[in-house]
């Protein structure tokens, strides 16, 4: 079936344990309401799976449908150049309905970023190329809408509703002595 190309590498934005049994990659769009829902679900998965999960994000902005998606992706990448990718990622999802340039600048300010640098990076070719490269890698990997998830390098076509997704991921964990209730 569809495989993640390229595989996770040093260029990727990742969160969690690099040696985790489960690598979960999301191709998403910051303006997509389904991705907003998925964001909240991923947060719970991260909490539930702890050190067993490595989560990565790649941009897949559907710019014709979501006019702010490209700019929002650029804002996350620009924050990433100051080491604050995930804070901006969360900020954008928490404010999906306010993604105008003025909003993006306000979020950067709230995160305490170097504003001059952020503004320059937001418009830079480097950032635009990075977003485009993510998009093309998604197209080549079989991403067919947002969000699309890959689990350990394979496209996940099942439900990403919390219960179904968590049950699916738990099956992938190595067997361990049963733990008591949390």
């Amino acid at each position, binding site marked *: 079936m*569809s495989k993640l190309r390229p595989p996770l590498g040093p260029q990727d934005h990742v969160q969690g344990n690099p040696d985790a049994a489960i690598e979960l990659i999301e191709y998403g769009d910051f303006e997509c309401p389904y991705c907003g829902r998925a964001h909240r679900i991923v947060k719970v998965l991260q909490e539930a799976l702890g050190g067993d999960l490595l989560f990565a994000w790649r941009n897949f*902005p*559907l*710019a*014709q*449908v979501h006019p702010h998606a490209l700019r929002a992706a650029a804002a996350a990448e620009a924050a990433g150049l100051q080491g604050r990718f995930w804070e901006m990622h969360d900020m954008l999802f928490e404010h999906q309905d306010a993604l105008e340039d003025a909003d993006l600048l306000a979020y950067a300010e709230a995160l305490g970023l170097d504003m001059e640098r952020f503004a320059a990076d937001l418009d830079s070719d480097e950032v635009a190329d990075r977003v485009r490269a993510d*998009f*093309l890698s998604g*197209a*080549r*990997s*079989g*991403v*067919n*809408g*947002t969000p699309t998830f890959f689990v350990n390098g394979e496209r996940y*076509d099942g439900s990403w509703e919390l219960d179904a997704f968590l049950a699916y991921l738990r099956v992938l964990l190595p067997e361990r002595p049963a733990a008591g209730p949390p």
Partner: protein
Amino acid sequence: MALEPGTRAPDFSLHTTPDQPLSLRDFRGRRLILAFYPADWSPVCTDQLAVYNELLPEFRRLGAELLGFSVDGVWCHLAFAKDRKLRFALLSDFEPKGEVARAYGVYRKGEGVSERALFVLDGEGIVRWSYVSPIGINPGAEGILEALEGMERIKR
């Protein structure tokens, strides 16, 4: 059965707007991607076409134009394309219904719609790659890109 690689693609002339027909002949010398899908507005097609819409520059870089086909009427196509901001032509395989889909071997008689099928044609109008997806499953773009890139390699 869908036309196989190596087959000459049957010509067509279908309307994209009430007064504008498009034919296979119009694209002679250029690669073409033909995307047959069951219906405007259905959730799967919508994502599928949105992804292709974003990939138009990449398809063009690989020398290909994209055309969408369904049995919907022109006015339906116009409203759908406007709503989804599609930047490629949707052809209306409406009268006689599904004639082009039949010629390409991708018409579903029972439902009266086309399969979710993809064809990549070379500049001479020969099918170089074809794929029929299970109707509820979005085939994505990887197959199209691989087919176009494979043709690129042969050319160089």
